[in-house]
């Protein structure tokens, strides 16, 4: 690995770090939601995704195959969410 990827790796967080932003977007807690990687099929809680946050946008990668699952970019008046790498996201139905 070159220095840049070492640095990216060292600064890597996980899905827990973007819990607040996701809750802002969706209005519900999402980090415990099972997410299926569209590349390798691994299923894990969104909190387990690898998060790269030291850039203008946030990139979430699969912890098994490290392919991109989601990208989130915030601008002054909108939030862009691209989730081509997620085959599905399972949301529990709460009866209350």
């Amino acid at each position, binding site marked *: 690995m070159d220095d840049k990827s070492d640095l990216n*790796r*060292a*600064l*890597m*967080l*996980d*899905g*827990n*770090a973007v*819990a*607040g932003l996701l*809750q*802002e977007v969706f*209005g*519900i*807690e*999402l*980090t*415990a939601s099972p997410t299926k990687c569209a590349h390798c099929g691994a299923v894990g*809680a*969104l*909190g*387990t995704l690898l*998060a790269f946050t030291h850039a203008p946008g946030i990139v979430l990668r699969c912890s098994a195959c490290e392919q991109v699952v989601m990208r989130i970019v915030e601008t002054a008046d909108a939030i862009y969410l691209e989730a081509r790498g997620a085959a599905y996201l399972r949301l529990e139905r*709460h009866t209350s």
Partner: protein
Amino acid sequence: MKRPLEWQIATVSAIKPETANVKTLTLTLPAWLPHRAGQHYDVRLSAPDGYQAQRSYSIASAPERMGEIDLTVERLEDGEVSSYLDDVLVVGDQLEVRGPIGGYFVWEVAQGGPLLLIAGGSGIVPLMAMLRHRAAAGASVSTRLLYSSRTHTDVIYRDELETLRAASTGLEVFHTFTRTQPAGWRGYARRIDTPMLQEVIQPLGPTPLTYICGPTLFVETAANGLAQLGVPASQIRTERFGPTAP
């Protein structure tokens, strides 16, 4: 849980130094909500020119404490938020926060155990909330904490961990010191590895409910080691911290 995540203005009601570069801030919240041990708050700083910086900090206090929370903050080199929180902030100051946040890296007494907690450096913070919750609820679930620090003086909550261990049933605490050890130290004196994990988890059986928090490499070493020892991935929850090495 469906509710809007609103920013609120917290007031710093106490500041407690924990180690040379770690402090605990007690925040009084106008819209306090009970949290789950392991959750965090987002903290947002705004400069007069509109520049904003935001970070997440784990809640250190037990959910049983009402109206206020403790956030324990490690001052990072060049950390624009942590250096403000640890060096500039004084009691009575106000701070913009939102939370509690997160639903994956949480433990509540009802989830039971046996419980294995593995902390690297300031990764102890959310695990301390779990231990305080366990104590406040009077739970006796079998629990083992393995806590890696550089030196004895870098151990956050050192006295309280000893008090908790002595006072509660079923809790054992194992320290490892990776740089220097106090005179006469007979415990672990190296970075965590699979043999160390094996010794610590053995009495808990093959499937302890496991929470690992620390820097990325620490978390990966611990999680991979436990996988080698046969702990199912479904029993392991991880939270990665910033770039500091334990």
